[in-house]
């Protein structure tokens, strides 16, 4: 497991391949490390480090994209999506420019860094920007596949990554399409819709735990939160008695909200949301530890699902 690359490493490898094949793709940096020594050295004429100036980087990405270029702009989730939100809204998303914002340290993945680096509101904010594609890949392989797919994807996009290496979910030859959720495990008593590295792992572990009890918990990897794969959500709502969402993000405004909005309009079904309802207490914790404190763990999820199914 520890041999798996981080999502950032996978992204750098995929973006390197993209930049080698396409002359209009840029790597913009905001002093976050890892990019200058790789893509910066390999493609110096299409690499710029703006320093610790995320709003400027996003605004400049808008200017570059308005001339026909495709910049990938790199930062941490809090700085790219929250600090530079207005630049993203006005200078990138409103004009529909093909800027790709790549943000690591999303959710609680910054772990022991503490609350200043925990970012559980970015998807909620960004989902409200019409036309922005929001991607939350579950592992390194799917990160690389989505980066490759982004090159032919119209409009702006936000790629939400974690910090450390996570176990692989997908084989190298997997096929992923932006906007299409992937069924990772069968089961129709309940469908668990998960997004992001730890949530997908948690969902798969809960699937195994519940299978031992004879409960069929299907698992969908919703790697594209916006636009949501409404067909997959409606299908899950029709075939399951219960939908459970799991995300490394606030329970307000993220995947859980997106799923609830969709089924409320198209296929009413009970939805239980697991996520970061409030910041984790208890001081220092690693990524999985912090998530488990707010109820995002396989054990909590299995308990929640058993209880919710019993209530029906």
């Amino acid at each position, binding site marked *: 497991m520890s041999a798996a690359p981080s999502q950032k490493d996978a992204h750098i490898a995929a973006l390197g391949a993209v930049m080698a094949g396409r002359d209009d793709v840029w790597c913009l940096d905001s002093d976050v490390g890892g990019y200058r020594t790789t893509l910066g050295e390999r493609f110096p*004429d*299409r690499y*710029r480090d*703006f*320093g610790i*100036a995320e*709003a*400027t*980087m*996003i*605004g*400049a*990405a*808008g*200017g*570059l*994209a*308005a*001339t*026909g*270029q495709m*910049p990938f702009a790199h930062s941490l989730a809090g700085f790219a999506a929250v600090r530079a939100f*207005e*630049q993203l809204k*006005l*200078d990138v998303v*409103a*004009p529909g420019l093909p800027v790709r914002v790549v943000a690591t340290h999303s959710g609680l993945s910054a772990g022991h860094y503490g609350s200043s680096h925990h970012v559980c509101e970015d998807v909620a904010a960004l989902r409200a920007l019409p036309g922005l594609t929001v991607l939350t890949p579950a592992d390194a392989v799917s990160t690389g596949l989505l980066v490759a797919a982004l090159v032919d994807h119209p409009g702006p996009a936000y790629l939400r990554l974690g910090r450390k290496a996570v176990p692989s979910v997908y084989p190298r030859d997997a096929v992923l399409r932006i906007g299409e959720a992937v069924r990772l495990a069968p089961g129709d008593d309940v469908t668990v819709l998960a997004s992001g590295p730890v949530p997908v792992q948690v969902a798969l572990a809960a699937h195994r735990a519940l299978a031992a009890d004879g409960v069929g918990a299907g698992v969908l990897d919703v790697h594209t939160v916006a636009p949501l794969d409404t067909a997959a959500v409606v299908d899950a709502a029709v075939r399951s008695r219960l939908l459970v969402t799991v995300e490394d993000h606030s329970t307000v405004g993220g995947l859980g909200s997106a799923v609830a909005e969709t089924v409320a309009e198209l296929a009413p079904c009970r939805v239980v949301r697991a996520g970061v309802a409030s910041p984790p207490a208890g001081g220092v914790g690693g990524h999985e530890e912090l998530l488990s404190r707010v109820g995002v763990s396989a054990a909590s999820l299995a308990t929640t699902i058993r209880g919710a199914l019993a209530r029906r």
Partner: protein
Amino acid sequence: MSRSHLAPPTCPDTVALAAAVREQVLQMACGPEGAHVGGALSSADILACLYGGILRVDPRAPAAPDRDRFVLSKGHAAVGLYAVLALRGFFPVAELAGFGRDGSRLTGHPPWELPGVDFATGSLGHGLAVGLGFALAAQRAGTDQRTVVLLGDGEQQEGSVWEAAAAAGRMASPGLLAITDCNGLQINGTVPDGDADRIAARWAACGWRTEIVDGHDHAALREALRGPDAGPRAVVARTVKGKGVRFMQGQARSHHVRLTEALHSRALRQLTAGR
């Protein structure tokens, strides 16, 4: 370095163009919503010089890839930009009558839809970073295209201006010109840190070649705004808010005005008398 195939338009009389811009600004201020008049009048001479003989743009091909770019970072001065674009043929002058009216393209701040608008603006502190992006694209493409960003002095209270100024200075970005319309006034009164020397010192400290000019002297403006720029360059233009209309000049109240018919006539008479 490849050269833009476009030549700057030659307007024989930029002073007359600026006067026509001011007239149109006053007319638009008679509309249902009024207009940001003060800053449009203070920057009218700068706009007239830019569109009269500096920027290589073509109203018949407003999206020509090798055009020079202009970003009105002080987007509330939109009426000035609309006037100069219309007068230079980017869209019919008659369209200006729609400013602020339902269904018009002419919103209070420059929109994406309008020919000649290279980037929509309005939220202060965004334009310089966008301009830096334009300049980086031109630098890498090896063209001599220029990017001109017009900022307000009050706008420079936004920290994002200095973030972008420092980044452009570090990158020594060629072809980037930032003009400050230094009229010294904002809504609540005097721009507290709006002294031209002080503003120029800040740009210089960020690594920009900097000069101060009289923002109403066309000969001085033409000289200062001319390219090419080997690195980022800042021109701080000393201007007068409400310039040209005596009862508005130097008045913070001129920032946003709706003119009655009587006030409009008075303003036009003062404009003509001042020529």
